[in-house]
């Protein structure tokens, strides 16, 4: 890797990932259930990793992530609805669909980022637990606002958004958010964020503009939350306020905490597991329990989901507050030569 010319290091991984994903896309194209579930997983990963930038790296505590997701979903979705009948001339329809999708993702993300900026600027001066409550409040307010606006379909929500999202698009963004998080970690900016997490006063005294950094972390995090929301709006046939409640925020928090605050890999693993667990258990019960009892059990799976999330949080905090991975990454556990090898290429 050290042999890679410096200018290429930036984009090469992205290109590689895109090629790989394009390849996969060809295979999964006609597996609707797999695609749908993997989309849910992907979106949750994006949410968890982006939240981890704030909650894990910067040590702030936001429990309003669903609010930013909502902003992205609604703004992106609305734009997509407006562009629905348009198509980019001279391109195969699918390609123009994807470009339009990109556009609405970008806009959705930007809107969420703006929201993040507006919320962050004042509230990030607040202490940890107060900030938590304020972000929660913000999330709730978004819900109230949306359910009041005719343009956003009030309680019924927005439907008819072109379902142009695809396995590849979602996982490309998953890759992107992970890459961004990694590179922040390995940069001076990331170190400043970590410093804030470790000791805000000291960081401030060492010339770190704590408020500024916190706001920036918040903006980046909400940008990706917005993108996740916009993606969501492009594979879920209808979005309505019910999908972006406090409960959703806590789901994401659970993922981040379970994975380990500050550990990107942790967030990914947790997001995957927590999203798939209900699916797996359900089919398992159906397998073993036969149709009658099995179906009943399978229902219970959905019902106990939320209480289980709650218990999970409690147990984690008591037994393993640092989460699955602590703030380490899985490659920290890899043999020495690998770490040295990574050093060679920062």
């Amino acid at each position, binding site marked *: 890797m050290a042999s890679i010319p410096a200018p290429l290091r*930036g*984009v090469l991984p*992205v*290109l590689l990932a*895109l*090629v790989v*994903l*394009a390849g996969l*896309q*060809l295979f999964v*194209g*006609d597996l*609707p*259930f797999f*695609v*749908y*579930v993997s*989309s*849910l997983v992907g979106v949750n990963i994006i949410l968890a990793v982006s939240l981890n930038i704030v909650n894990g790296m910067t040590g702030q505590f936001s429990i309003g992530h669903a609010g930013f997701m909502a902003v992205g979903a609604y703004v992106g979705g609305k734009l997509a609805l407006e562009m629905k009948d348009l198509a980019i001339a001279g*391109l*195969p*329809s*699918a*390609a123009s*669909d*994807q*470009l339009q999708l*990109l556009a609405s993702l*970008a806009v959705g993300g930007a809107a969420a980022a703006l929201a993040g900026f507006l919320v962050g600027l004042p509230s990030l001066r607040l202490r940890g637990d107060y900030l938590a409550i304020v972000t929660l409040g913000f999330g709730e307010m978004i819900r109230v606002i949306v*359910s*009041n606006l005719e343009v956003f379909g*009030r*309680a*019924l*929500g927005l*439907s008819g958004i*072109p*379902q142009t999202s*695809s396995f*590849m*698009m979602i996982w*490309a963004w998953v890759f*992107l958010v992970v890459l961004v998080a990694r590179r922040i970690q390995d940069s001076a900016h990331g170190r400043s964020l970590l410093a804030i997490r470790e000791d805000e006063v000291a960081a401030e005294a060492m010339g770190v503009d704590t408020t500024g950094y916190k706001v920036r972390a918040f903006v980046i995090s909400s940008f990706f939350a917005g993108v996740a929301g916009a993606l*969501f709006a492009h*594979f*879920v*046939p*209808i*979005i*309505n306020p*019910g999908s972006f409640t406090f409960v959703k925020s806590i789901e994401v928090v659970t993922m981040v905490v379970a994975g380990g605050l500050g550990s990107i890999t942790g967030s990914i693993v947790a997001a995957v597991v927590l999203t798939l667990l209900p699916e797996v258990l359900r*089919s398992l019960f159906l397998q073993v329990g036969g*149709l009658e009892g099995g*179906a009943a059990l*399978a*229902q219970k799976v*959905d*019902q106990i*989901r*939320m209480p289980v999330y709650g218990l999970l949080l409690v147990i984690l905090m008591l037994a393993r507050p640092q989460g699955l991975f602590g703030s380490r990454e899985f490659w920290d556990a890899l043999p020495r030569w690998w770490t040295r090898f990574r050093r060679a290429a920062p």
Partner: protein
Amino acid sequence: MRTLLAATAAAAVLLGAGCEKKSATAPAGPAAAPAPAPAPSAGNTVLIGEVFSLTGDKATFGISSRNGIEMAVKEANAAGGVKGKKIETRVYDDQGKPEEAANATTRLVNQDQVVLVLGEVASSNSIAMAHVAQPAQVPMITPTSTNPKVTEVGDYIFRVCFIDPFQGFVMAKFARDNLKLNKVAVLRDLRSDYSTGLTDVFTRKFTEMGGKIVAVETYNQGDSDFRGQLTAIKRAGPDGIYIPGYYNEVGVIAKQARELGLTVPLMGGDGWDSEKLFELGGSAVEGHYLSNHYSADDPSPRVRKFVADYKAAYGSVPDALATIAYDAAGVAIAAMRRAPDLSRKSIRDAIAQTKDYPGVGGSVTLDERRNAVKPAVVLKVGKGKFDYVTTINP
């Protein structure tokens, strides 16, 4: 940024190549590719899928509906099932969220290979389901989603209840012609599309008929203090209040309205219909009016039997949700019996031809827009029961 955008744009084009086939077969979407039709011969059971919200603040609605369907299926199996096959149901919980509803439907359609899906009370969730069922060409019947948009999704989506516009019209007409009201206030549930839809129609119709809407207040599902709204309404001095909400809140609203000295009649829709209304509202709900699909004290033996059986099975008088869900299952089963075979296509066609199906909630005839055309009844809340007042035809 630019580099990334460029890169991802490249992705888009690559994908375009990857996508042609996909977008050729069917509109893109979670269940784009039509799943292989289930082999009817496989085993001697036929599987029906259900999606309802069994947790969260709407759980009670989901549970009622599920009970209704269970009953219909039991009866059908007792009567020899369909084409000698036993009917099985598979229920998934969507926790009241559209994404979960779509997920569950995808699962039913692709994994469980059901022949048709029944589902959802909340229109948002039904729409989510419809967008999965339609491209996969699986017939879907929604029992109680009254928002017109649901069946507009496509020709595989049906509904066995009347739609918001009609129900709103019914109450507006009743308020104007029978109750002779001039000034009406509206108290709607901000979180329920059902409530929003009814409000819009009622407001329009009522004003068209020369009445006046003097106040519109809102609440949220799960609230339990409505005094602020009611006091504000009182200030507007209406001679009737339209509350297109669900019984969970309506009961409490009625109590508090009386407590605040509001004596004018309250009016609502089928969302009121549940025994819970009496438990929560006590004597305060008596003398108010609601539009509904049927009247539980309809003397016809079919209704009597249903009510009795349901009581026996679940220990309560069936509410509108349970009743219509029962009819939905009934229509589905009847169609499966009529259909030449149990392929999704022929079941769909059979459902489409449903005419004068003797449902408990009134006879069901599906129009070309796949909505049920049926009269609505207006009921008056009495002591622990709903008294029939009048029937209003479309």
